């Protein structure tokens, strides 16, 4: 083992393990100190290979630090701190422990240098994160959590199969890029596992299903960690894979279309994760330096603004108990700051100039244009229109303005969120604006040198026209966008209804036939067996034994006699005999006298 190297995940895991032992008054301090220590540790990471452990004849690498892994670990550390601050007042230790274990899994997977370590941390994420859904304690959350877990375990099996195959065929345990020109079957299996976690359609339905059912603060962690860890893994393993460009573009538009239909604000945001991760997946597929920079920058910006949006809508959920547009509206008088923070998130995701998305998303689109993929580039611009339409306009409008659809009790409950939630949102808002206004902060962390300038007159003019005229379209068609109390069918239909059909099949035809078979066996089978056994016995006794010397039959007869002796009749005869003797003696004595 090399010199001592403190893994950032260890701080989180130890912090989580000790949390129940911390006295109640000191818990908030502990909840702040542990993520801060983790973040300081992540910031202090220097490029190199650390934490090498020899197990049998395998070399595990817990710390591969380079520009790519450092950037992702940095932002994971940052959002863990912010999201913990946001849920500081939550008194259930289990929620914080699950969240930190989940974050430890994410940071661990990002820093892992070999497949085995990577896989272990990857699965730790799935197992820990499901508790952030279950802690909501609603029947819907329970079901969504089970589906989430099953889908992720299926993805994990594919990943593991790919890893075993890959390591078996090459003998190399280190997590190195695949040959994207001609993917081996092992690489396809690994890719499938990655694409599932990145929520690429049709493997994406777990995301809107689960993230909308998570706890108000748990979904902030969920929105940040799983998909972006998968983006990191794709960047590491499959940069330049042609297939990812069309997949990314489809993702970007798919999320936007479903967001139009969605009535639950957090599920709408979840669909926009699919959409935004689409830019990143497309960037990985393009694979140029600009595209990879764009992917990383967008992942960084996305984690913060999407966390902010989930915090804003989570605040509404926490304070009113509602997350559906048809149950909300007109809340600007009650929760104005939550509105401002959500709006900042909305402007950031929409890539407004001076907000974080502007300096990150445009890199991916520019990379597509520079690579002469005009269709992909224009479709990504179209997805930007949809992003502003929903997250920038629909979410703030139908929650804080529009017609007041709140029930009296919802309106009564609604008020500004606690200080810690507002502080977390304020910090994230400032970061979003800082990243968008001062580009060197983010650009200096990117894996490749940056020769890109977002603030040109043309780019600003293009973006402002695109977004502001989208707003015109929104207000013209606002009637069509009025929320409707519906849900949208997605690819989870296949496994939800498929599972149900399987259960029905198991209940009805299988069980009925099982019962019938049992009855048939009891009637025909057992009776037949008994008859056969009777014949065999008779044959044995009469033919075989009779032919030999009847010994068995005689022994059986003697046994029967002996049995009669041993049994009750002996006692009975003795009793009767004794009684007769006593009566006889009495008669003799009477006659003699």
């Amino acid at each position, binding site marked *: 083992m090399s010199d001592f190297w403190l893994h950032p995940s260890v701080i989180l895991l130890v912090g989580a393990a000790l949390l129940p032992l911390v006295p109640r008054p000191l818990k908030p301090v502990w909840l702040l100190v542990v993520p801060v220590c983790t973040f300081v540790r992540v910031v202090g990471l220097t490029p190199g290979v650390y934490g090498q452990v020899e197990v049998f004849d395998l070399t595990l690498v817990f710390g591969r630090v380079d520009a790519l892994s450092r950037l992702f670990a940095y932002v994971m550390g940052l959002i863990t701190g912010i999201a913990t601050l946001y849920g500081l007042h939550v008194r259930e230790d289990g929620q914080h422990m699950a969240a930190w274990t989940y974050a430890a899994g994410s940071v661990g997977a990002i820093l892992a240098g070999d497949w085995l370590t990577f896989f272990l941390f990857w699965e730790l994420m799935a197992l820990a994160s499901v508790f952030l859904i279950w802690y909501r304690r609603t029947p819907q959350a329970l079901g969504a959590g089970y589906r989430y877990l099953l889908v992720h375990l299926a993805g994990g099996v594919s990943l593991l199969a790919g890893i075993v195959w890959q390591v078996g065929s090459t003998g190399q345990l280190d997590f190195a890029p695949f040959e994207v020109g001609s993917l081996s079957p092992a690489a396809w299996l690994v890719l499938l596992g990655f694409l599932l976690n990145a929520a690429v359609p049709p493997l994406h339905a777990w995301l809107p299903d689960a993230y909308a059912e998570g706890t108000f603060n748990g979904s902030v962690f969920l929105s940040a960690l799983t998909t972006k860890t998968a983006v990191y893994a794709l960047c590491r393993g499959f940069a330049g894979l042609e297939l990812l460009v069309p997949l990314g573009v489809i993702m970007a538009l798919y999320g936007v279309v479903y967001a139009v239909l969605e009535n639950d604000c957090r599920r709408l945001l979840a669909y926009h994760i699919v959409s935004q991760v689409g830019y990143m997946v497309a960037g990985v597929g393009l694979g140029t330096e600009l595209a990879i920079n764009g992917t990383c920058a967008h992942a960084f910006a996305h984690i913060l603004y999407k966390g902010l949006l989930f915090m804003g809508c989570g605040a509404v959920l926490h304070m009113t108990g509602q997350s559906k547009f048809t149950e909300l509206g007109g809340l600007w008088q009650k929760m104005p700051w939550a509105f401002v923070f959500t709006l900042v998130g909305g402007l950031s995701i929409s890539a407004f100039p001076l907000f974080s998305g502007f300096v990150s998303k445009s890199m991916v689109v520019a990379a597509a244009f520079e690579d002469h993929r005009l269709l992909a580039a224009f479709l990504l611009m179209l997805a930007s229109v949809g992003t502003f339409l929903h997250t920038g306009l629909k979410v703030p409008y139908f929650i804080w303005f529009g017609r007041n659809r709140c029930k009296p009790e919802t309106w009564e409950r609604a008020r500004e969120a606690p200080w810690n939630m507002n502080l977390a949102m304020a910090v994230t808002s400032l970061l979003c604006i800082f990243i968008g206004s001062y580009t060197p902060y983010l650009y200096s962390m990117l894996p490749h040198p940056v020769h890109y300038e977002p603030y040109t007159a*043309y780019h600003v*003019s293009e973006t402002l026209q695109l977004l502001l005229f989208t707003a015109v379209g929104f207000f013209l068609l606002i009637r069509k966008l009025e929320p409707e109390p519906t849900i949208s069918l997605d690819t989870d239909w296949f496994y939800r209804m498929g599972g149900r059909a399987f259960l029905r099949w198991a209940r009805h035809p299988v069980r009925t036939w099982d019962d019938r078979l049992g009855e048939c066996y009891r009637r025909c089978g057992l009776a037949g067996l008994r008859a056969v056994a009777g014949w065999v016995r008779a044959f044995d006794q009469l033919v075989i034994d009779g032919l030999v010397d009847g010994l068995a039959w005689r022994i059986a007869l003697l046994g029967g006699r002996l049995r009669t002796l041993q049994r009750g009749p002996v006692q009975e005869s003795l009793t009767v005999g004794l009684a007769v003797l006593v009566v006889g003696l009495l008669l003799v004595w009477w006659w003699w006298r």
Partner: protein
Amino acid sequence: MNLVAFIAWLRRHLRRLVQGCCVLLALLVIVDAIPGVVNKEHAHTAVERWPGFWALFGWAGCVVLIVLSKWLGHAGLMQREDYYDE
């Protein structure tokens, strides 16, 4: 600054606000048409050089997305909330 009072003030002057936004939109397209201000030499395609192309793209894209999505939704994707209840 009282945020609620500020939003209320904006809402009271909604008509002014909308007029101001319309002026801003018009200015945006006009400025886009001035080559001295917005240099389009590095635009990737010919259509991008049209003045106000992205304004049209944004507006038309918005309309297409809403109409197309709602059509898909009403074609069967949108279902009652108790659809999955047994």
